[in-house]
């Protein structure tokens, strides 16, 4: 697999949220505004890439029997690093994302990539895999959070784009909106990928 394929694989073909559908908790919870979505996407990408790099670098040093606890410690360490950095430098975002920052550690996508990719591949490939999966995660977060912010607030990144007369659809930024809109988004992706397949065939 060449480098571009590795990236594209995570970004589109096996998009963690829209295709693999893992790591949903934070996706549903904090996508109430685009800023939050981007913040969470970047935080997850950072942890994912960082832990992928370290795990692939250490893959010969870590005995097979204890690899899962070792991975968990490494991932938890990166999560804590992000937690501290955000607490210090992007405080508003830190408050908005709340408990979902430490919860990056149990985001299945990260342990899954450690186990399925980083523990078997070299550092460079693992870095690209982390960035690709992270970018795919970020893409899904951006899509969902922009939809929710536009519908629920009439704004994007805080700038009003729908006229004042637009009655915000509160439901969109409330919990039900998260479930329903993500469901529809996944349905749309299914539909598009089916069309693409049909074209190829």
């Amino acid at each position, binding site marked *: 697999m060449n480098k571009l394929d590795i990236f594209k694989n995570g970004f589109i073909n096996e998009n963690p949220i829209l295709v693999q559908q893992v790591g949903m908790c934070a996706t549903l919870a904090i996508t109430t505004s685009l800023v939050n979505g981007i913040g969470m996407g970047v935080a997850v990408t950072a942890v994912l890439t960082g832990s992928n790099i370290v795990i692939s670098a*250490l893959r010969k*040093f*870590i*005995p097979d*029997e*204890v690899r899962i*606890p*070792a991975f968990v*410690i*490494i991932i*938890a*360490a990166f999560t*804590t*690093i992000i937690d*501290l*950095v955000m*607490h*210090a*430098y992007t*405080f508003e975002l*830190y*408050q908005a994302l709340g408990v979902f920052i430490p919860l990056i550690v149990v985001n299945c996508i990260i342990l899954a990539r450690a186990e399925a990719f980083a523990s078997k591949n070299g550092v460079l490939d693992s870095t690209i895999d982390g960035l690709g999966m992270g970018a795919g995660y970020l893409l899904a977060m951006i899509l969902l959070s922009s939809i929710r912010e536009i519908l629920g607030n009439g704004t994007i990144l805080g700038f009003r784009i729908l006229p004042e007369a637009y009655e915000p659809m509160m439901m969109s930024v409330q919990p039900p909106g998260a479930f329903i809109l993500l469901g529809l988004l996944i349905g749309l992706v299914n539909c598009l990928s089916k069309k693409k397949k049909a074209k190829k065939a």
Partner: protein
Amino acid sequence: MKNSYVKLGGVLFIIAAIAAGILAWLNDSTKDLIAKNDAMASMDPQVLEAVMPGSVMFNEYEDPALVKSIKSENEKFVNLLTAVDASDNELGYVVRTWSTVAGYDGDMELFIGFSPEGKVTGVSVITSSETEGLGSRTTEPEFTSQFAGKDASAEIVDFEAVSGATKSSNSFLSAVNNAINIYNQYLK
């Protein structure tokens, strides 16, 4: 068999130790900023109301260069903020500063609010380690509320010190006056 357990445990231990070491270093270098952020966040509505009635938030002042230049000239000054109400209207300036005269146990850190008309709108203590029950009374509204409405065109001289805690009271006053000087020098 036993050897391999030692090895497994050893590897995990090394990884955990390195992780903990890095985190300890990072924690150490971010903890001041984090503490400051938390202090800002924990600014309860009571503090906002005491410093600038009607305000919902203190924002960073619009011109960071000015804040920087005040900092370089006045070492006790911490920050300059703009108090806004719920609809984002500016209500006045808030100076965050340490006292220039020490109390019993080091300096006190205060918020001092100024209205556009040049009056002190209110004062609230952020950090103080004055003696519990005596000097600490300088942090209570009975004492701090006397500054609200005072004219800010010159240093305040007349005030009622907490009896038995003159030193703490003077330390408190020095912070207020430091803020008044900053206000007159830079914001008028």
